[in-house]
């Protein structure tokens, strides 16, 4: 019952933008008809602005009234003068409303700390952006949020920087969610962010990594696409840019990089899922990363995360010619995949993009590798087609956990093999 009354007050408050600071709710006990009449007199005094939740009826029936702060003195004096008993039900209506608002929000699942955040479910863009802010607030010494650009539709593009100091240290880059429908990747990115803050200072191997290198993590690399998968089409892959001369929307951000751009392995049809765009870096989501990488100048490992197929891939996608570092990349991949499998037995294959998955031009790690970032890898996470993009949320954490082991392998190798 209280809930209903509170709710109506809240509703009124929200709609009317009133505040109820200092307002009290009194319960009045009337013993006889005379007292009932006296309270009815009170009701008629409009200037008091009384709000009767339960109006005067008959002797023995309690009367509940919300009294605005300016009228409290007058009402109490009146009741006391006429010997009418009352108790204070609510000392301060506003405090109660604030408390309830907090509870409502909490029960909706909006976490206030990264400890209460639910990592085993898929989240909206807003929830992930809130998470980012909370994580930064909880770990101000370790984590900072950088905005590297704005999406086509004007959404901020954020990168988390994990650093223990130094000046432009050699860095590891990880991105998730470049293809928006690959939901397990953004969800894993969120988990990685938390994991980093937990393990630094706790796990010796990881602490060594972060003591010497920085980590950049872009969790929602394609925010427009991601918002679209929530609002309209769960299986949307591309950006949401408009292409002049076409009714079709979006460019494949993993065909838009300046490496073999436009060659076989991408489509020139704007309606295609692998449309490469009108020119390299036409997509602001891609350009923002390109600019960041170029400006930073000291990124040593670049890992772009996709799903699904359970693969660990290195360059190239646009040509069959093997990269100069093929043997080393192959070795690192072998170790990384073994580390991944050690947790739950999940089997990954590894190799170059063009041999393991298909010919693909203008893809991310082909560009980063050509820029001199030797340890350039792409992951395709769980599964192998049973659920595909619609991976059950129960698999988020196991996927993130096993992938993290592979990432650690790559990061450690990068640390131990400076170049």
């Amino acid at each position, binding site marked *: 019952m209280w809930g209903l009354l509170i709710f109506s007050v809240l509703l009124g408050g929200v709609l009317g933008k009133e505040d109820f600071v200092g307002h009290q709710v009194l319960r009045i006990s009337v013993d006889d008809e005379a007292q009932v009449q006296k309270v009815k007199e009170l009701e008629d005094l409009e200037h008091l602005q009384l709000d009767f939740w339960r109006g005067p009826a008959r002797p023995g029936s309690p009367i509940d009234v919300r009294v605005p702060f300016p009228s409290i003195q007058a009402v109490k004096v009146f009741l006391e003068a006429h010997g009418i008993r009352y108790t204070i039900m609510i000392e301060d209506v506003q405090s109660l409303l604030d408390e309830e608002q907090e509870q409502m929000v909490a029960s909706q699942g909006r976490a206030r700390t990264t400890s209460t955040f639910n990592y085993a479910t898929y989240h909206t863009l807003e929830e992930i952006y809130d998470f980012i802010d909370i994580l930064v607030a909880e770990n101000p010494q370790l984590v900072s949020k950088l905005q590297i650009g704005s999406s086509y539709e004007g959404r901020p593009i954020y990168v988390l920087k994990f650093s223990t100091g130094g000046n432009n240290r050699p860095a590891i880059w990880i991105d998730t969610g470049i293809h928006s429908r690959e939901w397990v990747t953004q969800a894993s990115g969120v988990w990685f962010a938390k994991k980093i803050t937990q393990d630094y200072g706790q796990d010796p191997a990881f602490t060594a990594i972060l003591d010497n290198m920085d980590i950049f993590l872009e969790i929602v690399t394609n925010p427009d696409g991601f918002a679209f998968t*929530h609002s*309209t089409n769960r*299986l949307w892959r591309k950006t949401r840019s408009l292409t002049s001369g076409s009714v079709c929307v979006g460019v494949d951000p993993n065909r838009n990089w300046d490496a073999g751009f436009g060659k076989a392995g991408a489509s020139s*049809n704007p*309606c295609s*899922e*692998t449309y490469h765009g009108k020119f390299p870096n036409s997509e602001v989501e891609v350009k923002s990363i390109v600019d960041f990488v170029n400006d930073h100048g000291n990124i040593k490992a670049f890992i772009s995360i996709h799903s699904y197929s359970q693969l660990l891939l290195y360059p190239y996608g646009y040509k069959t010619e093997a990269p100069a570092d093929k043997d080393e990349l192959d070795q690192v991949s072998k170790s990384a995949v073994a580390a991944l499998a050690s947790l739950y037995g999940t089997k990954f294959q590894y190799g170059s993009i063009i041999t393991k998955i*298909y010919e693909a031009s203008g893809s991310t790690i082909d560009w980063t590798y050509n820029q001199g970032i030797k340890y350039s890898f792409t992951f395709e996470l769980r599964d192998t087609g049973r659920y595909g993009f*619609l991976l059950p*949320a129960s698999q988020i954490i196991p996927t993130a956990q096993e992938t993290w082991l592979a990432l650690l392998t790559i990061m450690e190798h990068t640390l131990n093999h400076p170049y």
Partner: protein
Amino acid sequence: MQPCGQSLFAPRPGNRPPATRLLALLLLLALQGAAAAPAGSRTPEDSEWCQDAELPQGLLLQAARAALHFFNFRAGSPSALRVLAEVQEGSAWINQRKERKVDLVFTTELYSTEEAKARLGKCSARVFFRNEKPRPAVNVTCTQLIERQKRQEEDYQLYRHMKQLNTPLDVVSIPDSHGHIDPSLRPIWDLAFLGSSYVMWEKTTQFLHYYVSQLSSVKQWKTNDDAIDFDYTVLLHEFSTQEIIPCRIHLVWYPGKPLKVKYHCQELQTPEASGTEDGSAVAPIELSNF
């Protein structure tokens, strides 16, 4: 069968399967009762073919996928659907029309089981990827994963559940965005997958393969006659194009009887297309030849 000569390909060291494996394969095919190959399939002349030692990347996987879709369709058993575990061995032949014939052995798991140590079934198959009629011709035999009686019982159980379901016409999206399938709706999903197997078999080529992403709508679910009459749309995910292909499928199923399927898949929108839908959105389908 000789390795491909210079007229077709540069000579390479052969990669012949050992005689014992070939023999085993031949025996298996001979022991098969009614031929599993669809009527009207061409048996290629031996002299047309030469051994394709190059084995293009992923060809064995493509063949395994085609074979498995066909197997699932022919078995007609929504409780015993299989997924690919691993390709173990295989070899291929190519002819002058660049059609390929693949012999292979692969392992399978049950689709419905997600245990880490799931029991593996073993299949051997011959898959013929043709040019003019793109549907691959398949001969496949698999070891038993579920005892036949048990499988029949489980199919019948599924059938009974289906008969009891309220018409799920308002059902949209199985699985939902979070990958969840309501247990009560699982039989619908299994049957939708079975029907999709027919479609995916027909559409699999040397270069394209498919997975079922989602059951996006149910047009009709009739159970008042003996058979289940199911009219629905699935979204197929196509590799390597990454396209999402909506396919309208109409099937009729009764446990133990061959599955009857008709379908129509939406084509990719061309750049000149008019209209308001996005390239890969789920747009209404015209069923002119349904």
